[in-house]
């Protein structure tokens, strides 16, 4: 690595770390009531309108849920309590985020398991490839190629 490159990388690193630090500190605003309400509404699906959340939907029941969320926040309920309340009222499937408990926790766990498994398989094939290097073409292959080439 030339000296120029080393300085280049150093400055890239400085800018990178600096920006990330700024990004973190900028983000560090306490959740206001409005932000909490927004977050809860965005994570609650409208029960009658096929996949839209209550923030986006114009349906009357969505408006009702929006009002309910505002009231519950004013009553000083926690986010979890509000989600649980809405699930009791309108069914578990208004909660857009599957809970991390019970059977629905699988939806979070399975992808991680699959990823770990796949990485395992990939790294083991890498090992196999590395140990098998140099034996790319066997005599059998050469024979096959020769035979096929000789065919009219």
């Amino acid at each position: 690595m030339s000296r120029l490159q080393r300085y280049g990388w150093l400055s890239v690193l400085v800018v990178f770390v600096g920006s990330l630090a700024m990004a973190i500190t900028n983000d560090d605003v306490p959740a206001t009531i409005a932000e909490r309400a927004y977050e809860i509404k965005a994570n609650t699906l409208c029960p009658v309108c096929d996949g839209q959340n209550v923030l986006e939907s114009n349906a009357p029941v969505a408006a009702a849920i929006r009002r309910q969320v505002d009231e519950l926040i004013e009553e000083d309920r926690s986010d979890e309590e509000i989600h649980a309340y809405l699930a009791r009222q309108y069914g578990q499937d208004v909660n857009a985020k599957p809970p991390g408990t019970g059977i629905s926790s699988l939806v979070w766990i399975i992808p991680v398991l699959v990823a770990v498994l796949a990485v395992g398989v990939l790294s083991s094939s890498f090992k196999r490839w590395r140990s098998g290097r140099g034996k790319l073409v066997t005599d059998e292959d050469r024979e096959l190629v020769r035979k096929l080439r000789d065919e009219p």
Partner: protein
Amino acid sequence: MGLIGASCGLIEILLALLMRKSSGFKRSLAWVVLMVAGCVIAVGAMELALLQNNFSLAYVAGNSTIETPTIYKIATLWGALEGSLLLWALLLCGYVGAAAWCFRTKINDRLVAWSLATMLAVCVFFFGLLIGPASPFDTLTSVPLDGEGLNPLLRNHPLMAIHPVMLYLGYVGFTVPFAFAVGALITGRLGEGWLVATRTWTLIAWGCLSIGILLGAWWSYEVLGWGGYWAWDPVENASFLPWLTGTAFLHSVIVQERRGMLRVWNLSLLLATFALTIFGTFLTRSGVIDSVHEFSASSIGPLFLGFFAIIVVGSVFLVGWRGDRIRSPGSIDSPFSREGTFLANNFLFALFAFVVLLGTIFPLLVEAVSNEQIAVGRPYFDRMLMPIGLALLALMSVSPMLSWRSTSVTTLAGKLLGPAACGAGTMALSIALGAHGVWPVLGLGLGGSTLGSAAHQILIGTRRHGWKGIIGRTGGGMVAHIGIALIAFGFIASTAFSEEGEFVLQPGDSASVAGHEVTFVGVEDYFDGPNRVVSAQIKVEGRGTFSPAITRYPTFGRPISTPSVATSWVDDVYLSLAAIPDEGMDRITLRVLIKPLVVWIWMGGALIGLGTLLALIPNRREISKEDSPSSEVQEAKL
């Protein structure tokens, strides 16, 4: 007219039988011509019926009206289930016809013959649907004076006329590579020959699918009024899944061409891509999943599921049967090589597709097992897919800079400095412009480095070969990478930094969101035929006057809000009316959303289209490079 469709279907079955006897390959080409002709006549008849308001046909009566503008009358063909299947059949015929024409001189090759047989089997399935359970030509005994018309959401924007066609061009296009994969597996000839032949087809299908998906997003943004363009809705996911596996294939096929590796994997990707298009259609058409796209739920779901099962079982069987024979020679020497990153790319795309698939069908699985009803919505997909997406962006910035086989750390440090500097610069710039949060800023930075490395590759190409450097696969691929980076910018910025407010306004009132002042000028309240339309004039400071509207259709339950978007390069001011005001009142409830960089997403889509076109142009330079010893061996095999 129905008879024509029926005869086509029958001919196909006869033909399939002929093929099995492995004689009369030439004759089958004539049957293809007849099938295409029959399908064109059927589509022509349907369009004629729509244009002439022939309400004796149930389809026309159910989906069209006398008042429907001509362009939407034409588009009504794909506005509902039966017609969209007819469009599917037409496009399928187009692809099959084109494939048969391209390979007409090689028809005596058993691989081509088997591929054609596979394509025709798919045709038989679709024609079977059209003459049986989903016939578009059912007639009514009592002819109504006027039709019922389409869902109003489907006839208020010209994008609706193009989006389904592009999407279907993508969906259907994967039939050809699928058929060739099947043909290759059956004949057991798994050299590179068939791949080179079908790569073009895959690329066309992929390009159309990309544009189709983005047009759908754009339509959703311009029409649905909720302010977004992507909701991880089951039907969106269904179109996204084949895109993911198709994209993975377009990358891994390069490894097969260059190094002769990953053959089983590539075949499986093609089979999976086609299977996912059928599965997606099943999800859309069966009504098993709640979705905003349920414009045409019907009872043909089980048939699609059965067809899907046949494809999956058949594919698994074929791969299992031929698996040994196609085990590839060669190996990947180092993870720090082009092929190493392609492997990582495929791993990530497969994982991405798996998460999307799991999230989409998980509520169904849970309900089947435990009778519980749960939803898997946007927060899940955002959380799970963000790390994968960022990793893919990181790969996109690194991979083009690596060489084949292996790259030393020193060269790597030199090559990657440029993209890394672009990335860090983008991060600093985004912070200066007010971005915040670790993940969004990191994502923007990775987008920046992707731009850097793609631009670097294009520069090298054009410096060496002039403007021709951008033509061909490498140039086209890099242009598409730039498109993806732009989409990433738009997606991240508009998701993480959007702001909104809801205001109740009287004429003359102003409101302000994130520094944008909007002023309510007045409303127009009028009747358009039987439909009551309320259109508000909103002045957006520095952008002009816009008129979001809301319409109540007597034939349709809730009022439909049509948003209006004041676009700029930097951000969109998205205006939509929240509720229809009482008659005679001029007080409105206005939702204002500020969405940064949304327009970059559409530009990115245009670049992907351009990149696809560039990649389709044959490039002499690349072709000569591909004459490596390994492909010679493969050709000898063929």
